[in-house]
């Protein structure tokens, strides 16, 4: 059964194999396509990505420990009719021991020049699905709660006493992906 998450709500994830799915409906108007991106930051105890390959996004679809796999970029929302358009498959059993936390973020690509925000995107959500049953564990509707924002921190999986928990953060930002990356990465970013 789906839990519609509240900010700060913590759940014992109780799963190893899950998918973090992002879905939205293509823009059928005449404007720019809405290009939503799902990204995951695998963070060490200093809350930094230990190596750049531990940042999973459209430009890097697999983590070195093979724990995370991104299905690839959907620039329009057209990949699936009604289902997830971008998916990050998570296998917690494979996560590198250095990684203490996996942070999930959704951003709207090029939202500045295209003058876009979540309020304009139709039927956008991010959710967690249990891969063994196909059932939805948690879901955020992005359009309703984040009408003027261009980025949403969805939540984080984190280790606690040998177990993984999920904390829903649901924080909206008027920022882009580089903003989040600059918090967790000390190398160069080309925008």
């Amino acid at each position, binding site marked *: 059964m789906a839990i519609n998450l509240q900010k700060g709500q913590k759940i014992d994830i109780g799963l190893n194999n899950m998918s973090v799915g992002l879905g939205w409906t293509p823009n059928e108007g005449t404007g720019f396509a809405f290009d939503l991106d799902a990204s995951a930051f695998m963070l060490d105890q200093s809350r930094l990505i230990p190596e*750049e390959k531990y940042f999973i996004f459209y430009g*890097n679809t697999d983590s070195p420990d093979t724990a995370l796999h991104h299905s690839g970029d959907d620039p329009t929302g057209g990949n699936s009719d009604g289902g997830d358009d971008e998916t990050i498959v998570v296998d917690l059993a494979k996560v590198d021991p250095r990684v203490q936390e996996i942070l999930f973020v959704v951003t709207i*690509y090029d939202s500045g020049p295209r003058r876009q925000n979540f309020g304009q995107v139709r039927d956008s959500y991010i959710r967690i699905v249990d891969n063994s049953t196909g059932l939805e564990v948690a879901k955020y509707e992005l359009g309703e709660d984040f009408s003027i924002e261009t980025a949403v921190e969805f939540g984080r999986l984190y280790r606690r006493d040998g177990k993984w928990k999920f904390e829903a953060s649901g924080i909206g930002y008027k920022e882009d992906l580089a903003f989040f990356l600059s918090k967790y990465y*000390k190398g*160069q970013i*080309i925008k």
Partner: protein
Amino acid sequence: MAINLVKGQTIDLRKGERGETYDLSQVTIGLGWDVRKKNGIGGGFLSKLLGGEEEEEYDLDAIAFLLDGNGKVANLGRTADINGRSIGLYEGDIIYFNSMRHPTGQIWLTGDNRTGAGEGDDEQIIVRLDSLDQRYQKIVFLVAIYHGRQQHQHFGMVENAFIRAVDHQGHEIAKFNLSGDATYNGMCSMIFAEVYRKDGTWKFRAIGEPHQTDSFVDLLKAGYTY
């Protein structure tokens, strides 16, 4: 923008402009910097006594090594007498201020700018990768401050210095700011980037590795093969 360049550490957030979508049939390596007013550093009173609005000149140079399949500069050229000066590494596989045009004509330095005066790129190395002889498998691009050690100059002091790579369509592939960051204090040269053949096409890789030496010859001798 503070840029902390560690070898290989670059995340490119652009879509549709990554990797092979660049038009690498011709690549321009652009190097730019600004002259700096000396009294801006030393304090007004003393520097005025010493001559006031003097400008300190930095002479940055763009350099290219053409490497063969073994990752070596195969042809070190010859020593030539040019206008009464003895010039080494002339007409070999190194493109630099004393040997600006490669014998094949497919890669050249547009000129030696010694002060950085002017907007935009002050020096450019242009390479027609599509026409480049098959014996060249990789080109490594460098930047160095001419006589930097002797003049006590380093990238941490140069104003608005950058090196960038631009593809044939004018798209900037990579750009590193060389100044305004403590990381570059004491650094007089940098291995900027390389282009290399892979599966019949050319690939670009940003490297951004700073070095203390001001001489590309040191880097050449150290066997910078990448």
